[in-house]
């Protein structure tokens, strides 16, 4: 039954739309305008801001630091996602086996996904410490490392210190979504393949992978979107350092806006980041078109 009088419908939606238009819609538009203006702390309150067209965009694309941050964002995201995805996939397969504690244990792992990023950052900063960190102590005891690595203060390793932390946070997300996909696979297909004498590996390549393809692509794209906009982890653990070796687009944008108070330049970096995410989101939405939400 669809109600004929739609006034109540509009009234019910109004608060949500009003809040979101003010706190999300308006900032998106304002940020685009900001990026074309020369806005500093001085003229922030007054109306006297000069339009400078595409100058900020020209500036950032010829800026070495921006290109470095862009590259590091890509590197961080791709490395994180490969690791999270492979480990998450393996765990999803393992926990899809038929044993008593499987779903309980799998659920338990989700707790790390809800831990505040600031806390995860703090915790890994401790565990990665060259003097007292267990992630140096254990590999050394096992003979994998001969001397401690200054994970977060060595320019060669700092980005990997962040990747490691992000992988820990992201595994349950990948695992849960892939597990949901596996559960919806037809059990009969598996069983008939077993009768046909296909071994574990053949079943995986010929049946599991192709059938899971849509789910796997969605997980990869969502993971990409959430990883690419990383902010809190980097901000707390290294704040882009040492020597900009962990600078990513979001921290660079924040630095321009709130350390240098060059709001226009910060806005242009944020917009480039947003645009990249929108491109990924476009493919994501195209893929999930059958989904009822965007029917």
């Amino acid at each position: 039954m669809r109600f004929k009088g739609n006034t109540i419908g509009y009234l019910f939606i109004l608060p949500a739309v009003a809040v979101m238009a003010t706190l999300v819609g308006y900032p998106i538009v304002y940020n685009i305008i900001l990026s074309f203006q020369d806005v500093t702390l001085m003229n922030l309150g007054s109306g006297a801001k000069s339009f400078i067209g595409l100058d900020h965009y020209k500036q950032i694309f010829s800026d070495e630091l921006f290109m470095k941050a862009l590259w590091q964002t890509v590197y961080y995201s791709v490395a994180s996602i490969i690791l999270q995805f492979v480990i998450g996939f393996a765990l999803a397969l393992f926990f899809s086996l038929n044993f008593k504690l499987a779903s309980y244990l799998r659920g338990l792992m989700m707790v790390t996904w809800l831990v505040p990023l600031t806390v995860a950052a703090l915790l890994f900063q401790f565990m990665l410490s060259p003097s007292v960190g267990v992630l140096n102590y254990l590999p050394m005891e096992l003979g994998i490392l001969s001397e401690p690595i200054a994970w977060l203060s060595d320019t060669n390793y700092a980005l990997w210190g962040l990747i490691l932390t992000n992988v820990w946070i992201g595994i349950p997300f990948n695992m849960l979504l892939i597990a949901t996909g596996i559960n919806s696979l037809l059990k009969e297909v598996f069983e008939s393949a077993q009768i046909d004498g296909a071994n574990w590996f053949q079943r995986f390549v010929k049946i599991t992978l192709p059938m899971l393809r849509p789910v796997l692509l969605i997980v990869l794209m969502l993971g990409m979107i959430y990883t690419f906009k990383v902010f809190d982890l980097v901000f707390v653990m290294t704040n882009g350092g040492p020597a900009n070796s962990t600078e990513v687009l979001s921290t660079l944008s924040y630095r321009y806006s709130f350390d240098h108070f060059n709001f226009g330049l910060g806005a242009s970096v944020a917009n480039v980041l947003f645009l990249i995410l929108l491109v990924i989101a476009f493919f994501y939405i195209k893929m999930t078109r059958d989904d009822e939400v965007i029917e």
Partner: protein
Amino acid sequence: MIRKSIKHNGWLLNIIGLIIVIIYLSPIYWMIITSFKSQSEIFQAVPTLIPKDFQFNSYIDQFGSGLGQMTLNSFIIAISSMIIVIIVSIPAAYALARFRVKGAKLILLFFLITQMMPTTVSLAPLFILFKNLGILNTYIAPILATSTGGIAFSILLLRPYFLSAPKALEEAALLDGCNRFTAFIRVMIPVVMPGILVCAAISFLFAWGDLISSLTFIRDQELWPLTAGIYNAIGRYGTEYNYLMAFGTIAVIPVIILFVALQKYLVKGLAAGSVK
């Protein structure tokens, strides 16, 4: 054959599974246990899995220096944000499921994209907006800023709950003399309660975990939540890890409580909410 052997080796799989989870969750154990150690025990050559003597100093010392206030601030911000999310999202999700609304697709698309938007896009505009509204340096700024993520998530999560709720229930309520509004409150809300619980928990946790809104919009340290306190403490305490881990432990306790209480709903809801 294979089925049988798996069943037969069930105990082995259970043990492997248990070991995986223990290793995976060990950092959280490590954080909690470190908060009860003395500074010298943390720095000794061989780390201890269980503190040799349990100390509560890292908690006691810090409660004097603002930890209590920060915990309170975190609760004020997270609960207020959660209330806004719930009040705004439930009717909207219901309307988007049950009424013909022009532009519904566009609205849903907008919410979907909101979830993907990097925080840095909105920080500077909101800073200017809040400055003009005179709410910089109040709880209201981070409360509003953190509610948007929860609203988008909740509407996208709750709409399918309403779609799958039997329409006969509403019809019966209308025949019984309810109007559309009372039918919504008395009949529909109880039906989708599991979804509402997930939304409430998630929007609480969104706001609870937020760092950058408070750090950007609040200058007065008296109003800072735990996350901002942690950020500040990292610089202040340096390597006094027992203090820092105590901070982290307190910030994580509500997460664990919520998770344990709502685990069944949360895991299902998170899967649904992130795909949609």
